[in-house]
């Protein structure tokens, strides 16, 4: 299963100044030597040294490269690893890749280097998950988040809460197992204080968790509205302001258009829907179905209406069709009546936008007026008003979030048990469950840590 040698291009695709091919496995060096002609005759392939040379395909020089050999276990995967740093663009890199495969390497599956690192004990679980996130992250902000986790900041934050819970558990357990020793009695108030602080630590991590998860997977925003309300121009306007990082999203359907933008670090996929009101035309109906599906999957819907003509009955129908989705109304075409007036008009009679749309954002997709306001509002709504600084977000993974919620629940139950005056044993049951949930994030064992804590804090030895 893990005894062959894998190869992949380790750097992101694109026209970068440098590209890296990475090999991992027992035959890494043998395969690399078959491609590489060192420029100095005395090349000894010492571990962790850079060697200059050329990659050759027969007589032909493919690229001028630097080669580094990292001998097991002192490498990323803890296996023999060779990295070839090429200077060319995608074409030479692809060629080196193919040469390595021809020499017996296997093209790595996505994440397989990380998997090997994890299986070989180089990474703990949160670190491995974070590396996978770095690989898959779509923007700088999500990258920074992944880096925070990799640096052990998540483990540290979880450990903060864990230590508080452990301290209370040890106090209770010491009173149980060493009841005749000189252990101070477990008083309710200090325990509740300590546990409340732990619960707050957990809540702080959880508050930003939804944002973290959103940062990681990106948000989906559908643009809906009646024909000619300006959906497509809004899409283009939002894309234009993010020109530099526009990426086409694979799997674009014929009828809905998907484009990716970076919204202040938050990766967002915009979906231009074809329309969602009933139609007799069978072809159009397919488009309607696809649009409905897109809206179904969206985190938020931008409902565009024409402020020049005001909120119409058809706008009401579309709004009704959006059912429970969060909606942000956009009063487009304010350039046709002046910005202030547009906002007033959309809010005022005779055709006011309904309450559900909250305050519509006035803008002109044509002139770009109001666009920054929309972007700010969109981001605010997507992040549910959280707006935590990226550096404060440490949880971006559903597994961690679930475990934290579990731990938080157990701590709350324990607090309630203490308040209700329940016996120590029952409080302890909940605290041990909380510790084991947090331990599942950081990989810490429960019963030995309780004993360690007891013996370090209390003088036991009746």
């Amino acid at each position: 299963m893990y005894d062959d040698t894998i190869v992949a291009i380790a750097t992101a695709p694109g026209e970068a100044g440098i590209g890296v091919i990475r090999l991992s496995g027992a035959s890494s060096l043998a395969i690399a030597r078959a491609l590489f002609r060192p420029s100095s005759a005395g090349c000894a392939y010492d571990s962790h040294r850079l060697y200059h040379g050329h990659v050759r395909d027969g007589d032909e020089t493919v690229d001028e490269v630097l080669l580094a050999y990292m001998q097991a276990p002192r490498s990323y995967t803890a296996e023999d690893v060779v990295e070839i740093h090429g200077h060319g663009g995608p074409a030479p890199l692809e060629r080196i890749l193919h040469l390595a495969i021809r020499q017996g390497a296997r093209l790595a599956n996505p994440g397989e280097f990380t998997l090997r690192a994890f299986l070989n004990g180089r990474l703990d679980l949160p670190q491995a998950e974070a590396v996978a996130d770095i690989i898959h992250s779509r923007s700088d902000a999500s990258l920074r988040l992944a880096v925070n986790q990799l640096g052990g900041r998540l483990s540290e934050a979880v450990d903060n809460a864990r230590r508080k819970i452990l301290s209370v558990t040890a106090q209770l357990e010491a009173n149980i197992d060493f009841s005749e020793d000189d252990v101070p009695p477990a008083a309710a108030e200090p325990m509740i204080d300590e546990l409340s602080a732990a619960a707050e630590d957990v809540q702080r991590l959880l508050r930003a968790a939804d944002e973290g998860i959103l940062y990681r997977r990106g948000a989906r925003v559908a643009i809906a509205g009646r024909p000619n309300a300006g959906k497509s121009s809004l899409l283009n306007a939002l894309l234009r302001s993010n020109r530099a990082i526009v990426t086409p999203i694979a799997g674009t359907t014929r009828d809905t258009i998907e484009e990716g933008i970076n919204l202040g670090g938050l990766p967002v996929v915009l979906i231009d829907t074809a329309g969602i009101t009933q139609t007799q035309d069978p072809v159009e109906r397919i488009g309607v179905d696809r649009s409905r599906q897109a809206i179904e999957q969206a985190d938020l819907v931008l409902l565009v209406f024409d402020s020049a003509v005001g909120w119409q009955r058809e706008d009401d129908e579309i709004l009704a069709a959006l059912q429970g989705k969060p909606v942000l109304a956009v009063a487009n075409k304010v350039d046709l009546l002046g910005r202030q007036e547009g906002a007033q008009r959309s809010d005022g009679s005779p055709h006011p936008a309904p309450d559900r749309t909250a305050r519509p954002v006035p803008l002109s997709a044509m002139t770009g007026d109001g666009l920054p306001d929309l972007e700010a509002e969109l981001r605010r709504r997507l992040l549910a008003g959280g707006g935590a600084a990226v550096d404060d977000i440490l949880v971006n993974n559903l597994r961690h979030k679930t475990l934290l919620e579990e731990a938080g629940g157990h701590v709350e139950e324990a607090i309630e048990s203490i308040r209700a005056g329940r016996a120590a044993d029952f409080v302890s049951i909940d605290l041990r469950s909380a510790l084991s949930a947090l331990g599942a994030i950081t990989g810490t064992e429960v019963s030995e840590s309780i004993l360690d804590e007891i013996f370090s804090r209390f003088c036991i030895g009746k």
Partner: protein
Amino acid sequence: MNKRYDVIVVGAGHAGCEAALAAARMGRATLLLTLNLDSVALMPCNPSIGGPAKGHLVREIDALGGQMARTTDDTYIQIRMLNTGKGPAVQALRAQSDKRQYGALMRHTVETQSRLDIKQAEARSLIAENGRIVGVETSSGTQYEAACVVLTTGTFLNGKLIRGEHSEPGGRSGELPSLPLTDSLRALGLRLGRLKTGTPPRVDSRTIDFDAAAIQPGDTDRPLYFSFANAGRSAMTDQLPCHLVTTTAETHRLIRENLHRAPMFNGTIVGVGPRYCPSIEDKIVRFADKPSHQLFLEPEGRQTLEVYVQGANTSLPEDVQLAMLRSIPALRSCEMMRVGYAVEYDYVLTNQVRVSMETKLIRGLFLAGQINGTTGYEEAAAQGLVAGINAARLAWGEDEVSLPRNSSYVGVMLDDLCTKELTEPYRLFTSRAEYRLLLRQDNADLRLSALGHELGLISDERFERVEAKRRAVSTALSGLRSTFLTPTPRVNAALEEVGQAPLSKQMSALDLLRRPEASYDLVMALSSQPELPDEVREQVDVEAKYEGYIAKQLVEVERRAKLECYPLPEDIDYDAIPGLRTEARQRLKQFRPTTLGQAGRLYGVNPADVAILMVRLSKGQPAPVA
């Protein structure tokens, strides 16, 4: 060779007596060898049995047909229920034993047991052929042949007694160690480690000023016994009290000034001592801020004036020990009868025995007690019982018996011994059990009697009593469930009279009993439930009040059942399983766990490794064999 036995037990301490009695009671021809017939079932350290987790063990030993509970009940001089009010699962019985009577009664029990021979002789070497034990040779050259041997050497393996600047070979105070047996074990290929423990001085009770100490009486107002066979006995009223004193600033000063003479600190002692049983000098160094420490004065028996100074373990020189004791007001003019000392001894490193207590290396050789790195009379007795049972079964070609973690503290301990590397002598704590609420001392009979009965260690009559209790509990619970109370003035008046909230609507008698303060007596009075014997009432009350918590733990047991039952062949070649992390691979090779559950408990084996093993084994591929 001499007479051939099914089982030979070496050592007649708490482990050895249980092992020998179990084997003989199972019908095996059994020999018990002891260095000294006058030290059978000796308590060389504290004169007490039980306490949290340990008391649980004693009740489990009893339910499995062991002896410790019965002998304790017949000889204790004080008994108390500890941890009342902290939850039903952590309540525990603790008895002060009459040391001499305990030993005498246990010796009598052993002597009068049919099929059991007891001889005073030093076992010098173990005789093994082709990886299988065949007998024991004594220092006089006599050889005894046996199918199985249970080794329970206590602190005698290469024992060394240390006090101040003085150290001498010894197994216990006044007794010589066993040196050749250590060599014999090494020759068989077993790897040994070294541990340390200590014991405090004993003082003459005539020289104690008890008026200057706080008295600690036993529970005389209700019947408290370890053995389920003694349910129905009346309360023991003739109990002796213990006393509590505390160390003074002067005590601490004396110890500090003499630390350079303490073997713990001057390098004489190399063995690792237990954190839960530190010497007084260790306490004063580690908890320097604490102005005083508790010491308990515990009588060692009715026919002796020796008083054990619990909490004053020490290996300081004799003169310092005396000065230190005399710095405590109640002991100001005390005389020591025995001096405290530390003892260092060899033990067999864990991971060399299986949960049956049989060594992996030598078929038919079983180990129990301190030789496995544990401390405590109760821990030793429980291992002795399991080793005796399994030696008896193997001698007759029967399968080994194992006890899972989720049904007994004995099982928790055996599993820990097979999955943990010891950094100190191992003692059981209730916090080591994952399913503490299921492993109560009050239900040990319900948990384990069936096994004891099946093994032939619990009589039909006693087993039938346990089953009758089980039925009575279940009948009472269904009666409570199907009886309803209505908020009549009579009912509510009765509730308010005992400070309980009145009913607002109809409620089942069971739901009323679920209220934390509601007693069965109250429910009985209000809903005409039948009178119940104490031990049935206790079960009904616990089952009713803690049903939710118990159900949660049962779900957890169920969830892990698959892993716990998933067998790992003991001869897997872990090097041939790709994907295991290096650390995990090393641990698995070192401990050779027998189930996936055990594998997951090894330090350094994480869920991903367990998943890899599971995938490997469930693919239907035979596991690679070394």
